[in-house]
């Protein structure tokens, strides 16, 4: 009897523990979701397009970076800022133009842009069989975002079409339109790159909604991007046409300060709300850390630029402040009473449409129209705006206004490049009175190969088809 009980117990032990098992090998993740189930319903595609947008909040795009991103690099590479001895000496290679392929300059942006492109492509390849009514809008958004990411890469790493006569035939960037993990694309020409971006944006403008939820592009935003791209391409009339389709008015003078403290959203065509719990990004640390009295700025407003702001120009108050003895950059500094750098991510603004238009009109010789477009912006910035320029003075006024309006806002380096200008800094120090230490490098010739950043060596190691820019 004892033996039998014993044997039964034993068998139960063995066999019982057996049955638990083979099915245990089929484990499904708790924190992740099968890709095959993620692009099916209308809600899935809403989530998916927001996923593409969320790439824009990466540091090297619009999330604020201390290794170079869309908010800072176009000014750090140009003449709007002076390196500060009060900071951590970040991005010095960019500021002094000492970068080489091994420094991976702007590799973060390059990478984030192609991550965005991959996400768009994955969405676009999955949406083909989808028949929901939101399809056109989402395809429009995905194409516009994909074009924008290509544009950001192209402006840093390639020439801009109007930059020089050989620009269109020179090396552009790889154009990627399929979600392919094994892709090793080579670089298109600048001409092909911009043609692609423009045609995608034009298609997107047709597909996208007039209005979309906050944090997402709409028709106004896509048309603004399109006018910018045509301007970069020297397609003046098309730039004007696209800019004319932008309907939102420029922020009035009274609301300009509030725009940058998130108390109003006037003139914003595309911005991303930055709330704790949803995003909560301290984007402003790209320029400085600390409260005004203890400010540790990485870069400060260049003495020259600071003095270009007239005293009755509202932007002097909205864009700059006095902190710890510096002319500090205010645009991303914080909401009222805050110094943590958490503000909404402003990406496209209505003022650009008018400045794009003014520049294009001027290039077509339509000076009166150009002046009118320019004055739309100026009347909303000054109490007694300058006006009445003609000829070269008008051109310079348009350029100056663009510099002032979009200081520290993703434009300056590209503008200098595409105008065929080099970079010349003011030679002044970082203190608010112009004393202190000046930036180490002061001038970059308009023909310098360094206006096109080198493709990172790492990127070339991974993609043998990737040709380096000349002279690196």
């Amino acid at each position, binding site marked *: 009897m004892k033996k039998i009980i014993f044997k039964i117990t*034993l068998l139960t032990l*063995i066999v019982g*523990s*057996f049955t638990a098992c*083979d099915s*245990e*090998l089929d*484990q499904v*993740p708790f*924190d*992740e*979701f*099968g*890709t095959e189930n*993620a692009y099916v319903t209308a809600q899935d595609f*809403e*989530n998916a397009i927001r*996923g593409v947008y*969320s790439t824009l909040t990466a540091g090297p795009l619009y999330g604020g970076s201390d290794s170079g991103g869309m908010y800072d690099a176009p000014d750090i590479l140009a003449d709007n800022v002076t390196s500060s001895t009060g*900071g*951590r*000496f970040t991005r010095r*290679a960019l500021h002094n133009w000492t970068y*080489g392929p*091994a*420094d991976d300059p702007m*590799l973060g942006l390059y990478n984030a842009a*192609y*991550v965005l492109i*991959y*996400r768009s492509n994955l969405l676009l390849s999955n949406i083909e069989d989808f028949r929901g009514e939101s399809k056109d809008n989402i395809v429009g958004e995905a194409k516009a975002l994909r074009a924008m990411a290509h544009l950001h890469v192209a402006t840093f790493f390639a020439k801009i079409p109007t930059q020089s006569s050989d620009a269109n035939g020179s090396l552009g960037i*790889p154009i990627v339109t399929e*979600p392919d*993990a*094994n892709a*090793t*694309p080579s670089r298109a020409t600048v001409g092909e790159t911009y043609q692609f971006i423009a045609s995608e944006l034009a298609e997107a403008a047709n597909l996208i909604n007039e209005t979309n*939820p*906050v*944090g997402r592009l709409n028709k106004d935003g896509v048309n603004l991007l399109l006018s910018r791209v045509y301007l970069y391409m020297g397609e003046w009339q098309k730039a004007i046409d696209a800019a004319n389709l932008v309907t939102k008015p420029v922020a009035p003078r009274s609301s300009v300060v509030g725009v940058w403290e998130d108390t109003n959203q006037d003139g914003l065509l595309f911005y*991303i709300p930055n*709330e704790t*719990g*949803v*995003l*909560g990004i301290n984007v402003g640390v790209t320029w400085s850390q*600390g409260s005004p009295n203890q400010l*540790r700025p990485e870069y400060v407003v260049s003495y020259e630029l600071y003095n270009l702001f007239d005293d009755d120009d509202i932007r002097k108050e909205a864009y700059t402040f006095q902190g710890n003895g510096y002319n500090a950059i205010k645009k991303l500094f914080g909401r009222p*009473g805050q*110094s*943590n*750098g958490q503000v909404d991510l402003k990406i496209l603004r209505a003022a650009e449409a008018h400045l794009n238009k003014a520049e294009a009109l001027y290039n077509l010789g339509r000076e009166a129209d150009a002046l009118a477009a320019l004055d739309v912006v100026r009347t909303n910035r000054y109490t007694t705006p300058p006006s009445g320029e003609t000829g070269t003075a008008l051109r310079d006024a348009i350029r100056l206004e663009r510099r002032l309006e979009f200081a520290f806002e993703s434009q300056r380096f590209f503008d200098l490049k595409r105008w065929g200008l080099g970079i010349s800094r003011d030679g002044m120090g970082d203190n608010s009175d112009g004393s*202190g230490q000046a930036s*180490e490098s002061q001038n970059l010739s308009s023909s310098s190969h360094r206006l096109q950043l080198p493709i990172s060596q790492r*990127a070339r*190691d*991974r993609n*043998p088809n*990737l040709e380096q820019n000349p*002279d690196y």
Partner: protein
Amino acid sequence: MRTKFSGFLTLLLALVVQISFAQQKTITGTITDDTGMPLPGANIIIKGTQTGTQSDFDGNFSISASVGQTLVFSYVGFETQEVTVGAANTIDLTLSPGTALDQVVLRGYSRQNLSVATSAVVSISAEELNQMAPTTSIDNMLQGKAAGVQVTAANGKPGQGAFVRIRGTGSLVAGASSPLYLVDGAPIREQDLATIPNEDIADIQILKDAARTARYGSRGSNGVVIITTKSGNRGRDATVRVSSRYGTVSRINPNYRMMNASEKMQYEAELYALGVTAASALPGVTTLPGSPERQFLLDHSEDWEDLILKEGILQNNSVAISGGADKMDYYFSVTNDRNTGIIDKVDGFERLGTRLNVNFDAKEWLSLGVNVGYSRAMSDEPRDRNNTQNPFRAMLEYNPYEPEFVLDADGNPVLDENGNPVYNPTMDGFPIRGALETEPADEIRNTTLGSLDALVKFNKNWSYNFNVAVNWQARRTESYSQPGGILQGFIGDADHPGNKLDTQRHLVDLTISNRLNYNYASEDHNLNVLGLYEYNMNEMNFLSVRSLGFPSALLTTQWNASKIESGNTQRSRLTLVSYGLFAEYELFGRYSVEASVRRDGSSNFGEDVKYGTFYSGSLGWNIARESFFDVEQINDLNVRASYGSVGNRFGLPRYASQGVVQFGSYPGGSSTLPHRIANPDLTWETSTTLNIGLELAMFNRRFRAVTDYFVRNTTDLLFDVPKAYESGVGFVLGNIGDIQNKGFELSLQGDIIRTNDLTWTLGGNILFLDHKIVSLPDGESISPGNTFGIYWEEGAKINEHYYIRYAGVDPATGRGQFYGADGEIYFANELPEDTEHRVLQGKSSIADKEGGFFTYVNYKGFGLRADFAFKAGNWIYNIMRMQKESDGLYINSNQAIGAMDYWKQPGDTGVLPSPIYATDDQTVMQNSDRWLEKGDYIRMRNITLSYTFPNTVLERTPISSLRIYLQGQNLLTFSNFWGDPEVGISSGETLSFVDTVAPGEATLYSYPNTKSFQVGLDISF
């Protein structure tokens, strides 16, 4: 498969028709060495079974055996003896010094019965561990102890572990080259080893070759470390053992010196005079020598290293009670370890542990055992990052003329509105001394390790063992940025001051194991067959919450916070199902054969490749026991060979073969974030190892040698294949590439003097390692992620540094020079463009020679032991030196005194470059091998002077043994490296322990290694 195996088991069971039990009795006794000293930890095994025990600290043992069975007594370094159980119930035995070869070896799932080894295994006993007066983590103690085991301390942080590599780096992804650690059968992660109190460890077995590791299937390819906890002795009264240790710990003195205030200001003035404009605003330029302003700075200068560091305390107390009755044995312990570390204002590491191990015979045919240990490890977690939030960076960064507090004109600290001195933010903008108070972070790990065992003996041949092993860890971390604190001034929300992150992580690792054992022993034959069926499940549950807005710094939970910033929970699970059949056979005590086959299914592999089969075969032959062998001086000459395949799934994420997305948040709702591309072919990587070994014992076993040659090929490497940036997918995990490690190991040990009063033993071991990358995906070279300047290329060594070659200073101009790809010498701005000038030079971060040696003298109870560890052939990229001898680039922060030795006039040689070129040359210079240094060192890990009181003194006291000792650790280092050559983690937040691909690649201000002095006492009664 399941049905087949069940059928097989049923068949085996059906064979067990006759269950009979022999007459058993309990035998007790004492084991001593030839000098009469008790031998603790000696192994006593019933020959032909897997039943055994160990002697306690006083050499006492107790074992239950049947008349006629043979007891095998063995101890490391002593001759094994066999005694047949007769009428007597007591066996007192003296073992004579002899071989290290016949030790009883714990092996995969069973104890070895063979006297002729077929496999490369190293064993470290409790006694040996005890002699080293352990640091807080056992992996650090393995260094220099075992041939073929490379140990790199992660850093000097109290409670921090080490990178252990057995026979080279077997894999190329982070975390995938660590061995499998098992504590009483439960897997434990390398980074958690510090949660085990050392006092509880009976022995550590390191399985090196495939003959043994193949038994661990898809997890054993980097070797297996088996940690066994102590047990008591049957039939013995309780022995109480008390150990206590106390000492001080401090930073190992660096071999460089930082500038003091007057030197730094002089340096600033010199550089400014040269035209380094960055110095223009510094006090060396803005104040004149001899001026009151200069004098003020000198009067209030600070030695920041002195200020930030402290002499810490090491403390250990433990009580262990062990013993047994007729049918049971027990071991109970309570331990407390404390290591305050060396940062002032930080408490460091403390561990409390308790353990109870009980085995008893419930029936004649049934034994039950419970091993349960609990520990609580608390650790302060100061930032280990590459900026001044890290005290070890800050102390080298702050200028000596910058005082700790903001001073008024009279030199008194300025007070804030609460009357507290205001910390000086310094030029770095961040006062670390203040931050250590207002930014506390700590970690608490509660670990329960349990092993529950039931052993059923059917008859003298057949037995069945059911085991459940659990490792349950609850880990809690808190990091608080207090309202009003230092960090709040930078990134705080003014309306919601203060910011706190709490995380909790529960890790459960559960192993259920069924083993059926057949054993047959006769005069000439010894056969053991083990069938295994095992299930392992590892589950992780994590949650974290971060809140803002704390009304008071004294509030340390988030209950009163005004705003929750983020919170989330996570869960993941990994499972493994295993079947194994292991056999060993010995003939005539001279020839032995082993074979194993194991089939593993793992949940993280691709759907159709979940299962893998691993096998091994091995042979051993003790030539000295042949009748034809007639060399009197040679006692043992054992030749062995093994071959087998083992898998590796470490480093492979859970669910790694599945294509998935994750979701983030974006204004308006969820956002889909593509996360991983599916790879249904993803499977384990495989190592096949060939091992040939020779074990020799001579001169009555006074001289012992073990040598092994191995070739280890790893194929189907688990590999994060970097995809083109343009693809936007980053890395995709695949099985691509091959690497090879081969090497030669040698261990020698000999008693130079052996008399009754005096013994002197010398021993040592060394590994000569040769490794290379055989093939990579598409033959393309790779700059791996999570490294600084490592480059992988086919035919090159694993983890070679990749830099432009620095050619020294041009004596004529003082400018740094470099070798171009063409071998010509250039200045940085002259290097031909569009050419890759970085080269591989065979300089790897992996040491190709590593080992240790020791000397031990014992004279009438006085012992003097010194242990040395050494490493050679590895290269370290010394970023700390780059920044502390920076040619003026980092003039804003303090510099090492060596920075002054720069080129000053034509003809100067052997100097640093002139600072005037530093900015222009920075890009090339910092991409050069100027700071790539040899990491060779010899370090005296341990020196101990001890006295063991003789029995004649103790006889009249209740004390049965008493040992006192004085010990120093890391007191001597021989190295040409600038700084400390023992480099593991560069910077813990730049590259964490688990993310480190190339341990010891670079220096970057991680916690420095420490030295200590301790006095200790071991007493038993």
